[in-house]
């Protein structure tokens, strides 16, 4: 995907120690489970090795000499082994899956939790889609490596070691002959890997080109349509797709060569055993059973090896994914609670801004030297043209963003000295662009807080005039709101937002109230009434649009290019015939 382009460059896939350590730290809580899984793996590997061994004994001690006494026992032993292998392998696989899923669960929670601690500026920089990918797809990819990768890796290594040991213990010479072929295998694998590594890099670049093209095309689909670009886009897309196909077909070639070669090498090992071992059997130096056992062991020996090559691609993807995940987890939230936050029980709601300077980036200050005081229960309105910095006042008061210079005090304490949670709990926001979650109306008002009773929600809804329209919905308060609340009108959504604010009952309320159209006059009256009610008895800062609200506030600040130019009450400002007077005429006469 395009957003990963810069990250993609850094990916030359050998897992670095830091990433490996972090991955291990996720396994750590499940040490026991992990150990047990590995233990089961060991047992299965052992059982797998035991099978041919039993057959060897059966052939040498019972079948060849024609000794039937006790033969049944050895057969039953074999039956027991395969049954055990079945049961233990099942549990081993299931436990591996549990391990993988648990780690995935933890990792998801961590990422989710972490991004919720990031300041808003993080979300300005990172599009929703990118963050989503970390929580969903990347974790998925990683899980594949953890469960099928690491665990099988252990299993395969055990298997190879176990077989080597048992082979050596049965017959040293024959084993050494078998192992001599291994050198060939090592060479083949080495060449294969170096070839595949390069093409994999190319493939990854190609597929990411395809995906970013696709993503861009989907987002810009209307533009493509308007400009009649469909045919040409298809052509371009086909080209990218073809490149990818070509690159992949190349790896198919390598894989197609590699697998038969592994088989060929293992057959060579068998052939060697037959040639050399067979001769020894004839000469009576070696038993027939040993020969059979060796042949079976060689079969089991080479499977894990080709298995490992198959996992190569998965592993590459997973390492890339884990790096992206840890990249996000490592980004420290820049706005955090202080170490020893001020304890708060009740807040009066005195607010003062002292020489506050604020910019979203660099020296481009949107608020310059802002000073004002607001007593508990008082209300203040900010007015000004678009871009005058009004909205920023709200963004900095509850620390969505931190200011660069000056102080903001709440009840005489710097807001940076409160725990973020406490600060925001006491400062409510009513936004104009009301965001509704999918869920019931009830849960949208109380935001899923079960400690707020339905009665209280209804009471609040009645208070802000939302009760009536909610009652008209088929399921009333339990009515499900679909994505982005499409079933409610803009005005209705605003009333829901007011109900939210009432239910959470903050001491300080910030109201973002900007121009909207398409609110019919009936609901407009309801909103104005609701606004008046929520403003009463609490400290309110309002980014004002409605004339009726402005007339009712205790103090009006006129903001222009980040500075307060005038302040006073509605009537005093009008009387002075300054900017407010003009602004007022400009902005509000349409409403009258």
């Amino acid at each position: 995907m395009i957003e990963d382009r810069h990250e993609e460059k850094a990916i030359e896939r050998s897992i670095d120690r830091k990433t490996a350590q972090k991955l291990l730290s996720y396994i750590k809580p499940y040490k026991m489970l992990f150990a047990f899984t590995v233990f089961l793996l060991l047992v299965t590997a052992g059982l797998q090795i035991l099978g041919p061994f039993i057959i060897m004994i059966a052939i040498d001690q019972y079948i060849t000499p024609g000794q039937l006494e006790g033969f049944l026992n050895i057969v039953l032993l074999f039956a027991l082994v395969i049954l055990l292998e079945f049961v233990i392998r099942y549990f081993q696989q299931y436990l591996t899956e549990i391990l993988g899923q648990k780690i995935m669960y933890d990792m998801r929670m961590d990422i989710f939790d972490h991004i919720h601690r990031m300041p808003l500026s993080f979300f300005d920089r990172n599009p929703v889609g990118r963050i989503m990918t970390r929580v969903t797809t990347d974790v998925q990819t990683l899980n594949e490596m953890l469960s099928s990768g690491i665990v099988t890796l252990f299993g395969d290594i055990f298997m190879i070691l176990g077989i080597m040991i048992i082979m050596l213990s049965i017959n040293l010479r024959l084993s050494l002959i078998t192992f001599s072929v291994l050198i060939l295998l090592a060479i083949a694998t080495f060449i294969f890997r170096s070839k595949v590594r390069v093409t994999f890099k190319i493939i990854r670049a190609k597929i990411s080109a395809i995906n970013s093209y696709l993503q861009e095309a989907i987002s810009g689909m209307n533009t493509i349509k308007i400009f009649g670009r469909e045919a040409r886009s298809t052509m371009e897309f086909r080209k990218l797709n073809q490149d990818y196909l070509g690159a992949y077909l190349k790896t198919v070639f390598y894989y197609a060569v590699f697998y038969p070669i592994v088989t060929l090498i293992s057959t060579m090992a068998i052939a060697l055993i037959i040639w050399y071992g067979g001769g020894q059997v004839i000469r009576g130096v070696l038993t027939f059973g040993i020969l059979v056992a060796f042949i079976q062991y060689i079969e089991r020996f080479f499977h894990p090896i080709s298995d490992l090559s198959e996992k190569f691609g998965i592993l590459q993807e997973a390492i890339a994914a884990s790096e992206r995940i840890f990249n996000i987890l490592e980004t420290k939230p820049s706005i955090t609670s202080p170490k020893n936050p001020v304890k708060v029980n009740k807040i009066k709601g005195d607010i003062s801004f002292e020489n506050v300077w604020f910019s979203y980036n660099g020296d481009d200050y949107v608020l310059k030297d802002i000073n004002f005081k607001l007593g508990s229960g008082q209300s203040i309105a900010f007015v000004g043209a678009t871009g005058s910095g009004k909205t920023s006042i709200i963004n900095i008061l509850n620390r969505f963003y931190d200011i660069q210079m000056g102080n903001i005090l709440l009840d005489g304490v710097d807001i940076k000295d409160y725990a973020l949670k406490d600060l925001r709990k006491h400062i409510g926001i009513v936004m104009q662009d009301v965001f509704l979650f999918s869920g019931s109306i009830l849960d949208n008002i109380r935001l899923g807080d079960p400690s707020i009773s339905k009665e209280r929600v209804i009471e609040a809804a009645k208070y802000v005039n939302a009760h009536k329209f909610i009652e008209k919905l088929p399921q009333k308060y339990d009515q499900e709101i679909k994505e982005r609340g499409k079933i409610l009108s803009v005005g209705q959504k605003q009333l829901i937002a007011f109900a939210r604010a009432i239910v959470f009952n903050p001491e300080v309320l910030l109201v973002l109230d900007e121009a909207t159209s398409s609110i019919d006059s009936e609901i407009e009256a309801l909103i104005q009434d609701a606004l008046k009610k929520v403003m009463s008895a609490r400290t309110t800062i309002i980014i004002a649009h409605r004339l009726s609200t402005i007339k009712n506030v205790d103090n009006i600040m006129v903001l222009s290019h980040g500075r307060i130019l005038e302040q006073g009450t509605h009537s005093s400002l009008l009387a002075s015939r300054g900017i407010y007077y003009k602004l007022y005429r400009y902005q509000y006469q349409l409403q009258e």
Partner: protein
Amino acid sequence: MRLAIDGIMMAPEETNLLMYAALLVGVAGVQGIFRFYMRKLLVGISRKVEYLVRTDFFSHLQRIHSSFFTNTRTGSIMALATNDLEAVRNFLGPGILNLFNTIFVFVSTLTVMFLINVRLSLYSLIAIPILPVLVSKLSAMLHTRFRASQEQYASLSARTQESIAGIKVIKSFTREEHEKEVFKGLNREYINRNLSLARIRAAFWPAMVFIGGIGILVVLWIGGNQVVAQTLTLGQFVQFSAYIGAITWPLISLGWVINLVQRGSVSMKRINKVLDIKPRIRTPKHPIRPKEVKGDIEFRHVYFKYENEELYDDYVQKNIMDRNLLAASPKNGNWILKDINIDIEAGTQTGIVGFTGSAKSSLLNLTVRLYDPQRGKILLDGFDLRTMDLDILRASVGYVTQEPFLFSKTIKENILFGCKDIDRLGKHEITERIEHAAKVSQLHEEIIEFPQDYDTVIGERGITLSGGQKQRLAIARALAKQPSVLILDDSFSNVDTHTEERIVSNLRKETRDITTIMVSHRISTVKDSDLILVMDGGEIVEMGTHEQLLKTCGIYLKLHQRQKLSEELEEEL
């Protein structure tokens, strides 16, 4: 093949071992070549199918109507084109490859086995009938559990997306903990479903190993007895165990193949859901293809609303909106546009003003058939848009949308984005056209300051450009198309007033025979238009020239006064 040789090799014990060994390697070599081609062929085919499906998917996406994209998240479409497509490919490639392999090994091994000893063969296959029963039972369960897991995954994604999109609300009400709880529940349910899937999946491999093991067991017991009873030679006995062993691995991979088949079929269904969508807006069977479009536009009693029934997302689909509810909502019909009647003559300039949300953009979207109205019709040069060739219609309209979407290509490529005739033009003509378009939209001077001027690549969505530059580039892009109708949807909002004035005056000179429709927040932009429409709440409430409208004393007059004041204010501040 190898197994056949194994047989010959194992049976006579005293003959030339070296020859057999060499033969074995030789056969393995031949088999290797065979496998090489098989893999190349089958995996190659799967890759080619992937390629075809992806291309198809893409070109189909481009044909689907716009409302599909407003109702479906980009992420879900991307998931189809990546994860699901991969599952399909895995089924076609490694899946079928292994299936072939399994069938081949099975058939050849069984043949040899039956040739040697029928009774023992039958006995050793005693466990095989369990296989189809097991497979059909388990794979049905696998299928449902796969789907359950996929669905939960979709819910998880949807919730994450929502939580990120609503981060401001969550933070301001300090609901992070609650969000975490909800996510935790979904996350837990997801791993539960995955584990329930795993309970089945984990059985496959061991079961197959077990079935193979039973075969070996039977051979060991019955065969062993037969050897002792001398009805079977030791060599044949060894051979049999080797064969059973040879079947075991294909059996195991069969389990894996079933897994791939289930995954692939679930994914293919998901992809097909999109491929089966019939594009609602398309060229009719016998389209009108006017040679030349003059640019007469007429709206006749047009009513329009956005429709919601076609929600694709798994998640959203589960929650398809209650249509009765929609119908029951107070405003009659919920029309976005109500009874729109406009008559625009070719070559004239029309301005549209109105508040945010008064459906100005929706009106413009209809003129290029991004959407079709539910009632009434729109005519271009007297032809109903729906009877026209869609390509010709769109080629004749240059539409600068409100938030123009730029592509991460070079400036040059962006300007030429809609030019269909560039293949016929010479290099010089192309440069001329690009520069002309850029000059009219007051962008040329800035572009030549860029490091690679017109060949500068702009970032994703034009991230390296300022808001004003983006808008002007979008205007240039529309102009380079040489349209008969030019539509500008609030295209100067990030351009300063002076530049705007220059562009507007350029346009006026340039677009003398082009029908121009301009939406603007600034009265000054539209005041010289031949016709000005004032929209409010989806209706045209005032219509006329600047002078006429001022006399009406309606919204237009207020907007105009406001404008003047704002200019004064701007000077004062």
